[in-house]
């Protein structure tokens, strides 16, 4: 049944193609601004590349979060989802999975070419991508919990980044660190640990928030 929910989310995303592509285009545009702003020198750009890719991916992943539950909350579909026989936790997990498929995965695929455009040292690229895989999953999980929490709040759109960005700081630290050292193993393991922590906790928090929002 969670698969049916994810299928529904992908179907909605397909109909609203522009909304779906917005996060990816935002990522491409922001990362393209850096060579223009700091100059094309490979030494400077290559040093900045992992951080630029990570910060841009983090901000891009925030963009679709407000509508993740917001659209369903406003038109009454959230009640239908909560009454579909799925537990609130499963609804939240399905939504987080859809967010990753629609935002995290495209960012992950675009990150490689963008990092090369930013003259990343070729040896560092595998570690960057290996860190982005658990990293984007963490961002989808943390983001969905934040999106569920601000549901129904006034100025939720402003509250959401203030809530999610601090929680994403550990992911950012270990994610960039993995691409800036010759021994990325420790950082990748720490990212995996963060993912193992977020995987049960975030859907739990998001599910409880959804039930509270529906009251």
């Amino acid at each position, binding site marked *: 049944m969670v698969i049916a929910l994810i299928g*529904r989310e992908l179907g909605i995303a397909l109909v*609203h193609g522009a909304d779906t592509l917005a996060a990816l285009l935002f990522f491409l545009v922001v990362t393209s601004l850096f060579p223009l702003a700091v100059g094309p020198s490979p030494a400077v750009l290559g040093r900045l590349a992992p951080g630029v890719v990570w910060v841009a991916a983090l901000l891009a992943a925030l963009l679709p979060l407000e509508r993740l539950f917001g659209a369903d909350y406003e038109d*009454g579909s959230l009640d239908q989802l*909560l*009454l579909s*026989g799925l*537990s609130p936790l499963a609804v939240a997990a399905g939504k987080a999975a859809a967010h990753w498929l629609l935002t995290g995965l495209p960012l992950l695929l675009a990150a490689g070419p963008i990092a090369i455009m930013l003259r990343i040292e070729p040896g560092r690229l595998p570690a960057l991508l290996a860190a982005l895989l658990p990293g984007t999953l963490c961002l989808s999980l943390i983001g969905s919990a934040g999106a569920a929490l601000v549901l129904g709040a006034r100025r939720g759109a402003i509250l959401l980044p203030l809530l999610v960005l601090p929680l994403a700081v550990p992911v950012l630290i270990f994610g960039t660190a993995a691409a800036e050292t010759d021994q990325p193993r420790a950082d990748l393991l720490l990212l995996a640990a963060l993912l193992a922590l977020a995987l049960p906790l975030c859907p739990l928090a998001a599910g409880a928030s959804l039930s509270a929002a*529906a*009251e």
Partner: protein
Amino acid sequence: MLQADGLAAIRGDRLIFRDISFTLAPGEALAVRGPNGAGKSTLLRLLAGLLRPAAGKLLWQGEDALGDPPRHARRIAYIGHQDAVKPGFTAAENLRFAARLSGGSIAGALAALDLVALADLPVRLFSAGQKRRLALARLALSAAPLWLLDEPTNGLDETAAARLGRLLAAHRTSGGVVVAASHLGLPLGRANELVLG
């Protein structure tokens, strides 16, 4: 089948209603009436398990109904005052998720509310009454025994209200239970009545 015992609801700091008790046997219906703000929608959300009662119990075949909300959810089909349809989807696409969960036939549900001709039209082109009919088509998909309807006839013309009436009658004949709230008339036939406010 469904038994409410001393239900009460508080929203914010305000007591919406208290001491609501009723019993519905298979085939029976309850028409909830009352002015705007009397708590009709609140009562339906409470019966659906979306809202926890401040006091009282809800029993389904003698067992506590709200202890396991996902299990209770499978027993009910809830049509809120919002239509819960996506404007970018066609009528048929809007029903796909509900159909996958219940295993019902989309074509049959569309036919039950006379929407076959509109099946492939995006819902943003629908009128308010057509959207309402699409929301009600979920009932025809559902195999759930308990139907909870919040202002089901809002925006419906007489023909559509009569179709809804036939749908409700068929559901009750097969042993289902209906709880419907409205400040207007309902195409329910013989029904128990609960007046709020």
